[in-house]
């Protein structure tokens, strides 16, 4: 039983209808690709805070962080989340001004600017795989199964179709304006749910006295290498397509820098709230309030549903839906941009007109839904998919992008191609090898190799340790090849 009342359902329906109405209102106001994709580059600080916070934090964070804190405790905030804040501070101070120095529309635009068209296409493929909003769709499946009794596949379809419909109509304007409402809903409902859940489970006094000490150990029981591997995924901030799109859509560099710095406070608060709710769910299991076989990905939603009174539950569901839909709409738009603007147009129709570009990008949004739904059923844990996608994006684009933005002199196309290809290839080979040859342990895969008469455990999450140096090596190889070609010519 989900304990929802008619009032709760009415609130959720009202919210969903409002989102679709926003799309209809905007459909007649968007006529150009720049307006559709980067909101006419007119976004100010408050709008950027709303869209950045709500887009970047979807159900991957909401359910992923609470899933981890449910089993491991506060380590999920200290290890998963804090490296991201540092990365965001650095990105706001170092990247913004450089990225606003030219009229780019997408991350692959920047790659092409430095390395040419071939590197653009490789970067666009990695970006596309990252942008497919698989995690948020997985989260919506969980949410609709628990609240409406739908199957997870039906939940995936229902949430994704609603988010896609208003994004097709209004593009980034619809996305950003709905994000403002979604931002308030997701933050306020979490702020309201947290005290209720703590009161139900006896607050921190009960948890500190009765739960395993590792729940409140900042480093948990996780090895240093594993911690470092997770922290390295924060490098994805430097090549995050949604962040780049918001930077391009900002009115000026100052607006987006301020939005990022204020956003960090809200992200930190949000992460902490879902971390505590995950621990509260673990406490509720020990107290017999929740079933002993509760799955980690359901921890947050279950603890809140037994804590909140009627009416507030509906608002909370709308808040969680907001977290999911604000991510799904943004990343569907980016995926479609990758397909049409970054891959199809430069390869097959370089002379494509504005009207065709806009029409095809709209059509690409439902097309991007298909691989999302297929991949959503592949991964068992939300955190698994999260780590894989961040790793793939970072391994492919981080080295060439940072070299393009910060190294002096002109870059050579082979540097970008080799660096992207080696980074992406090494992650795929590593994941495949560990998954096929390794064993399942602790919900992940691990391959044990014996070197120098000593066993070495290679966890699937360690791939960046190999992929980033290989991507850098690819960059150096490309540089040498470019120099040799230059000397010959």
């Amino acid at each position, binding site marked *: 039983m989900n304990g929802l009342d008619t009032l709760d359902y009415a609130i959720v329906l009202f919210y969903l209808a409002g989102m679709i109405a926003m799309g209809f209102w905007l459909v007649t106001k968007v006529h150009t690709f720049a*307006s559709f994709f980067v909101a006419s580059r007119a976004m100010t600080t*408050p709008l950027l805070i709303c869209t950045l916070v709500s887009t970047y934090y979807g159900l991957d964070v909401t359910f992923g962080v609470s899933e981890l804190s449910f089993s491991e405790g506060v380590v999920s905030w200290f290890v998963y989340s804090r490296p991201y804040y540092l990365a965001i501070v650095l990105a706001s101070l170092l990247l913004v001004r450089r990225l606003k120095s030219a009229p780019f529309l997408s991350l692959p635009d920047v790659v092409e600017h430095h390395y040419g068209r071939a590197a653009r296409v490789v970067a666009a493929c990695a970006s596309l795989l990252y942008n497919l909003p698989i995690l948020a769709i997985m989260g919506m499946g969980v949410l609709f199964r628990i609240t409406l009794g739908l199957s997870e596949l039906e939940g995936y379809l229902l949430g994704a179709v609603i988010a896609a419909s208003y994004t097709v109509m209004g593009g980034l304007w619809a996305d950003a304006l709905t994000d403002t409402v979604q*931002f*308030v809903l997701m933050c306020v409902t979490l702020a309201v749910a*947290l005290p209720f859940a703590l009161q139900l489970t006896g607050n921190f006094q009960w948890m500190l006295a009765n739960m395993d000490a590792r729940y*409140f150990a900042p480093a948990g029981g996780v090895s240093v290498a594993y911690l470092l591997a997770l922290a390295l995924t924060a490098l994805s901030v430097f090549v995050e397509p949604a962040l780049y799109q918001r930077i391009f859509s900002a009115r000026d560099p100052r607006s987006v820098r301020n939005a990022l710095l204020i956003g960090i*406070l809200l992200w930190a608060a949000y992460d902490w*709230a879902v971390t*505590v709710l995950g621990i509260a769910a673990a406490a509720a299991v020990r107290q017999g309030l929740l079933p002993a076989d509760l799955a980690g990905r359901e921890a947050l939603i279950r603890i809140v549903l037994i804590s909140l009174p009627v009416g507030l539950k509906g608002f909370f569901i709308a808040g969680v839906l907001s977290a999911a839909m604000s991510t799904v709409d943004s990343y569907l738009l980016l995926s479609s941009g990758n397909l049409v603007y970054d891959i199809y147009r430069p390869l097959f129709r370089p002379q494509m007109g504005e009207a065709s570009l806009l029409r095809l990008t709209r059509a690409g949004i439902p097309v991007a839904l298909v691989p999302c739904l297929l991949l959503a059923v592949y991964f068992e844990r939300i955190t698994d998919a999260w780590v894989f996608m961040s790793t793939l994006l970072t391994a492919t684009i981080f080295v060439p992008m940072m070299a393009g933005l910060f190294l002096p002199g002109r870059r050579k196309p082979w540097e970008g191609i080799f660096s992207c290809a080696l980074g992406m290839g090494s992650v795929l080979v590593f994941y495949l090898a560990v998954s096929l040859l390794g064993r399942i342990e602790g919900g992940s895969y691990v391959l044990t190799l014996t070197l120098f008469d000593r066993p070495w455990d290679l966890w699937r999450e360690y791939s960046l340790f190999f992929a980033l140096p290989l991507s850098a090596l690819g960059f150096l190889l490309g540089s040498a090849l470019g120099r040799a070609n230059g000397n010959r010519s």
Partner: protein
Amino acid sequence: MSHWEVWTWLSVLALGPGSLAVFIFFLRDVKRVLREAADEEPEP
């Protein structure tokens, strides 16, 4: 009150009143932003 509780209440303040304050600032300049964007938009 433990430091865990202090940090939890600070988070509640940031998420509740903090997000509402940002939304109020957004409402203050939304008309201007949309008007400026519409001015730059060519007629279809």
